[in-house]
């Protein structure tokens, strides 16, 4: 029997089983998880689920209303099937998001670990991070678009670079926290070298924080892709992108709103799924929030 006042909750205690149990009990996590399954399935299986190729034009049937025969979500000004385009757009959004997260993780995690561990490196990495922060992602995207034109790869690079600094900071903070912990001290006393300490002690302990950070980056990158494509700096037409669809739909939105509604809803659902799940995961991992 313990009371909150007398027993400080251990800052670290966590085990996989308990986190999963907590997630399973959290309604938000379940909703978020279900949403993610649907969204990811839609993206992965888009080529098989979509009734038409996303760029196939049907000049005879522009601006079909939703729920018309053959076009479940209707068509746009060129008669392209909105359902097919939303499915493929979702696929592109997820691709860009995933690539950005990968870039942020691959660059950010090692930089964070190293700069947290070695003070002399910290000064260098900190300047680099400051520099990256000084260039907002749109500016980077603008630069890349100006050099190479748009495209999925450039959008992902711009968005990935944009999220490297936060990843570095988060991992660095975790490294600093664990570097001076007693269990790392104990490892040093057993003659564990820096790589063993970083790889076996610091990284596994920081992993949950990295995963949570990734669930923050993912929706941000999905939104970012939409913004870039909306501005004409991201995916280039006629490739499907939710951002481009919104940009196109803007012109005739007053007359026919649906081409401008479904892509927005799709983006919101993708992001909502990641945000809900990420929040729940953070709560489940937080030792301070009930058991």
């Amino acid at each position: 029997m313990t009371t909150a006042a007398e027993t400080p909750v251990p800052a670290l205690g966590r085990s996989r089983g308990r986190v999963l149990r907590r997630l399973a009990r959290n309604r938000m996590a379940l909703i978020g998880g279900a949403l993610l399954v649907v969204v990811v399935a839609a993206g992965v299986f888009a080529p098989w689920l979509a009734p038409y190729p996303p760029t196939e034009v049907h000049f005879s049937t522009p601006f079909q209303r939703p729920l018309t025969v053959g076009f479940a979500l209707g068509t746009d000004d060129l008669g392209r099937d909105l359902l097919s385009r939303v499915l493929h757009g979702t696929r592109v959004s997820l691709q860009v998001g995933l690539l950005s997260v990968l870039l942020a993780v691959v660059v950010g995690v090692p930089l964070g670990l190293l700069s947290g561990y070695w003070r002399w490196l910290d000064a260098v990495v900190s300047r680099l991070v400051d520099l990256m922060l000084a260039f907002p992602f749109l500016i980077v995207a603008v630069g890349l678009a100006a050099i190479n034109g748009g495209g999925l790869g450039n959008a992902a690079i711009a968005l990935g670079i944009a999220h490297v600094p936060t990843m570095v900071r988060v991992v660095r903070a975790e490294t600093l926290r664990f570097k001076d912990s007693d269990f790392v001290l104990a490892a040093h006393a057993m003659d564990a070298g820096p790589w063993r300490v970083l790889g076996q002690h610091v990284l596994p302990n920081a992993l949950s924080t990295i995963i949570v950070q990734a669930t923050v980056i993912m929706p941000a990158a999905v939104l970012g892709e939409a913004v870039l494509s909306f501005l004409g700096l991201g995916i280039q037409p006629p490739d499907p992108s939710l951002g481009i669809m919104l940009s196109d739909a803007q012109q005739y939105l007053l007359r026919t709103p649906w081409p401008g509604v479904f892509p927005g809803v799709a983006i919101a659902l993708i992001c909502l799924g990641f945000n809900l799940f990420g929040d729940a995961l953070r709560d489940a991992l937080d030792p301070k929030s009930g058991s």
Partner: protein
Amino acid sequence: MGRYLLHRLWQSALTLVLASVVVFVGVRALPGDPAQAMAGEEADPATVEAIRAQLGLDRSLPEQYLRFAGQLLSGDLGTSVRTGTPVSDMIGATLPVTLQLAVYAMVIAILLGMSAGVLAAVFRGRWPEWAANGLSLVTLSVPTFWLGILAVLYLSVRLGWFPASGYVSPFEHPLRGLYYLTLPALILGLSHTAVVQRQTRASMVETLTADFVRTARAKGLGRAAVVFRYGLRNSLIVVTTIVGLQLGGLIAGAVVTERIFSLPGIGKLTLDSVFTRDYPVIQAVVLVVTTAYIVINLLVDLLYTVIDPRMRVSGRAR
């Protein structure tokens, strides 16, 4: 403290110089020959060479950089390839619009975010927390530029509550200016509300469950006094840092917002120059934006030392 100040100044200066190098190298990496472009497709090689010499493009890269830096320091940002006007004039005309929009949006984000964050922290586990959390989830998930489009459509065009586009300087017509900026600022601000709200909530919860707050209650202070005197002051410190870090995103957001509401700001200038490959303008805009970011974060850090007494003695305590 004085040491810390000097250290921060030195860091900021270094970042600025590095940023200018990145921009310089980046622009040199752009495809196409500016001399050829200026001279025109049909120009003979001698003319192109002359222009090249005039632009200093025949010198070594370090020499070119020094020249470039010298021009920057004297306020010369070059000339637009597209319009032939000095870039500094173009930025002078557009930057105020973006700054007004950004500041207005930040004020909205802070007011909305802090109130929602405080409510969520104070009424933990009750409906205000659920409402605040819901709001933050929605603003984080719904693309705000889409909200912007819908808002223009329904609030401006259909209902006529707000002007759909256009800009009036608030310095000339204060009320009308604010009115024109309100919808754009609200849309831009909304996308940053969630971050402010979450940080406020987190720091409020941390403060309100801290031992020293229980001690304050044991003195006989009421809940309201504790929330405002203890919680708010501490979360203000956190929000201050956010403001600086959010600025990058805010500027990016401004580009989109200006596009939707046709505001003559720096975002519009950027987009126009990207699509016309107006390199001097792109280069200048990037420099101005990064400089603004670095300077504002420096100011935020200095403000920090004023708000947080722990910083006055020890320098950066974290």
